[in-house]
């Protein structure tokens, strides 16, 4: 491969200022929110669909693979440029092209930051529902790639439920629309397979999103329990009473212990679990549901129940949950954040087994979880400076994911497979299942030029990827 030829051609397409190829400039593109690392061939920052198309066609001609990248907040190594890929940083394509309040849709470029979209449509009393915890930084394009969720996807669904259409650049550089501005289209729902495909099928250049009316009322309730068992029983009971809250979040004793000194939430001594429930919608609905939820919370012997009366109090109740991961730094230098989903009814059993694994391995595990939909985020606390710890922690993470799959759950609720979990895919899928998925890839990208080495098992020794996974320096800015 002739690097200089690639660089020259790229500069011609996007302008010299928007091609990064010197090593010191490339370092920040080596990794994402995980610490998988790999040096890209170059980084190009296109400004339009046409530029993306030309870049993709050029890379194909020169046989250079491509990795599209949003804000790089991903936690499974999906944006890490394996195999000397060319990184397509989409951050310059950050325009909100159209807001159509009459039809409750917006058309945006992939580099638009999630929270900026909701802010931009607020004047129409609308918002974009999927709210990954990284929403202040993560981009809509990245959300489409990962089919991102967030705390409020319990009631409102994940990205695919809110994207009507995408304009994409295919592996050969051609530009096509999949889906559009309507809830149904004629022909196969190709939009639906591209969403969540982790950038392996096409590069997304425009997104048509569905917007929702902002809720008239919101109420947040918090209950503190002595153990996860009572909190989990309360979760099941809320669902059993016919309510799907907007969000239903939980923290265990270790997460509470980390959060308390940081955010001063005032959780009582001996708190074993905090359950946070939010309902929104019509004022009457919020009243009726919160009354029921308060009664349910009370039935399971809480140490304390708090109901926020205004926005400030609501923010305070959320502070513990939102600050929990960042606060883990008080307990250990590093943590490995895991993302698996289990059937909600298996919560008590799985949390007990995770506690066993923690005791057995000697690594403390703090848990924050989207309890309503069974999406677990165990965080293994460790110190990467101690020889061998990282490897042992990754191995422990694999055992937790195996546990999730064994009870009928899945490998990833919202972070994706990426590099991190590709070797675990056989836990869920046999060779025939994976081969059917591979054929989808082949229909889009026969040469494996788009985000190569992701999702599918590579059949390699895991020890080569000792730095795999979302092993994070604990500290502010951490999220899940």
């Amino acid at each position, binding site marked *: 491969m002739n690097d200089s030829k690639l660089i020259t051609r790229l500069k011609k397409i996007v302008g010299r200022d928007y091609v990064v190829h010197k090593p010191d400039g490339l370092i920040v593109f080596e990794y994402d929110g995980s610490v998988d690392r790999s040096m890209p061939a170059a980084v190009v920052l296109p400004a339009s669909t046409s530029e993306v198309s030309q870049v993709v066609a050029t890379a194909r001609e020169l046989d250079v693979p491509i990795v599209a990248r949003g804000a790089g907040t991903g936690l499974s190594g999906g944006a890490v440029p394996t195999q000397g890929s060319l990184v397509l940083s989409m951050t310059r394509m950050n325009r909100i092209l159209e807001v*159509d309040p*009459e039809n*409750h849709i917006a058309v945006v470029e992939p580099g638009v930051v999630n929270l900026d979209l909701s802010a931009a449509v607020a004047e129409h009393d609308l918002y974009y529902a999927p709210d990954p915890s990284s929403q202040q930084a993560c981009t809509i394009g990245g959300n489409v790639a990962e*089919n991102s*969720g967030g705390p409020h*996807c319990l*009631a*409102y*669904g*994940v990205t*695919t*439920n809110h994207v009507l259409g995408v304009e994409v650049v295919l592996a050969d550089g051609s*530009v*096509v*629309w999949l889906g559009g*501005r*309507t*809830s*149904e*289209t*004629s*022909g*196969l*729902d*190709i*939009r*639906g*397979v591209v969403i*969540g495909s982790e950038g392996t099928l096409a590069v997304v250049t425009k997104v048509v999103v569905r917007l929702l*009316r902002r*809720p008239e009322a919101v109420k947040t309730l918090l209950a503190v329990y002595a153990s996860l068992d009572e909190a989990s029983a309360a979760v*099941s009971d809320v*669902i059993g009473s*016919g309510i*799907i809250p907007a969000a239903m979040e939980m923290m265990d004793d270790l997460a509470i212990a980390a959060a308390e000194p940081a955010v001063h939430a005032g959780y009582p001594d001996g708190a074993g679990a905090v359950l946070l429930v939010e309902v929104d*919608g*019509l*004022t*009457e*609905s919020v009243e*009726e549901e919160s009354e029921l939820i308060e009664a349910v919370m009370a039935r399971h012997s809480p140490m304390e129940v708090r109901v926020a009366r205004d926005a400030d109090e609501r923010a305070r109740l959320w502070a513990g949950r939102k600050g929990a991961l960042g606060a883990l730094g008080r307990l250990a230098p590093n943590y490995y954040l895991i993302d698996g*989903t289990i*059937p909600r009814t298996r919560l008590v059993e799985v949390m007990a087994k995770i506690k066993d694994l923690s005791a057995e391995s000697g690594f403390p595990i703090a848990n924050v979880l989207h309890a309503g939909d*069974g*999406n677990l985020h165990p965080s293994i606390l460790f110190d990467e400076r101690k020889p061998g710890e990282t490897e042992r922690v990754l191995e422990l993470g694999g055992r937790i994911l195996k546990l999730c799959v064994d009870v*009928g759950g*899945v490998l*990833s*609720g919202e*972070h*994706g497979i990426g590099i991190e979990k590709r070797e675990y*895919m056989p836990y869920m*899928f046999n060779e*025939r299942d994976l081969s*059917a*998925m591979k*054929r*989808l890839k082949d229909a*889009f990208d026969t040469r494996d030029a788009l985000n190569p080495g992701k*999702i599918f098992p590579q059949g390699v020794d895991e020890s080569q990827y000792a730095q795999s996974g979302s092993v994070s320096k604990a500290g502010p800015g951490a999220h899940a």
Partner: protein
Amino acid sequence: MSNDTYAIDGLTPNTVATPTSVEGLSEALATSARDGLAVSPAGGRTRTAIGMPPARYDVALDTTGLDNIVAHNAGDLTATVQAGVTIATLQAKLQEHGQFLAMDTPLPDRATIGGVLAVGASGPLRWQGWGVRELVIGMTVVAPDGVTTKSGGHVVKNVSGYDMSRLHIGALGTLGVIAEVSLKLTPLPTGQATITASFRSAADAFSAGMAIFHGRTSPLALTWFSPVAAQKLGRTRKGSHHLAVRLAGRPRTLARMVDDVTASCNEFGPVDTGRVDGAEHEALWRGVADFGWDEATRPAASLRLSLPPAAAGEVLASLESAAATRGLMPAIIAHMAAGTVLVNLFSLDDSGLAAGKLDGVVADTRKLARQRRGTAVLEQAPVEAKRRLGVWDGGGEATAIMRRLKAQYDPGNVLNPGRYLDGI
């Protein structure tokens, strides 16, 4: 049952296979495919009218024997069912646990979950605005070589591998045969009621509907009826154009929704408003979902338009006049929040559907849909008209990818050959 029962557009299969297990389905499909026989999967056969006439048709693969509800995990709000389970059977079972599958489909006593998903079209009822495709969390599919594969899972939040089920929802069985699906369920609402209103003009009724769409109440269904549709549904109140709004919630919430929706209707000078509850409410929505597919309301031809919601209102009057000026009687139903417009065309006399009449209406309708960035699928029409006019509205730029997917998943072209768009 005679093989004639399985006829599609006048073609009768030589063989009918009736497997009762996923393994049996796999075996039947593999055997047929090996011999190069063309296979058409069948569920309740309520909407076999959809699609181009088959290029070949040798074997009907009846999936109604796969009628096992594999699991209902009430506490997880999920269920896993075989493809041949009817919607009515499933809903009855879920109802015992205070849950339901948030979809409403024509002829639920016969329609199977596999069939409904293969067609992919949503009915009037939408929870959170979701169509049928949003309700699937996992799927098992049998490929033409008999190989069974699964994707997704049994949990509601999952990004583990490609969401393969999306390929098969709305694919009319052209890429594989749906054998089993896992579904996301919804708690049954505590209370339900329907507000009906009638107006002097299409525009007034539509404007009231849009006011509700923009309001804070999120109805389960928001449906506009043209005069002929209203009449055929037995909505014979005063006024010509009708609106029906299906509401659900706990008592105080429902009362507030009723007030808000009634107020929105009142802003546009209704001739009449009313509230429908209980059995009458159920019957109204059953009639709406069945419309165009049951014996009583089966049209000579029908089109299904998908439009941005506000655009639907702009075309309603034109759609009515396009049909009327050509001597056809249109019964139009619009599910406004989804932007779905169903144009059912009836013949005014015994002369039937003369080509000249239908072709003009279809051309005009497609033009109107395209101008507003929507699509129009000719769901029902005489065989000759389907050949002449084409059923599908084109896959646009994505057609080439659809062809490549067909080549990947059904290289022998044995599954429903020719019935999908662009000869797929």
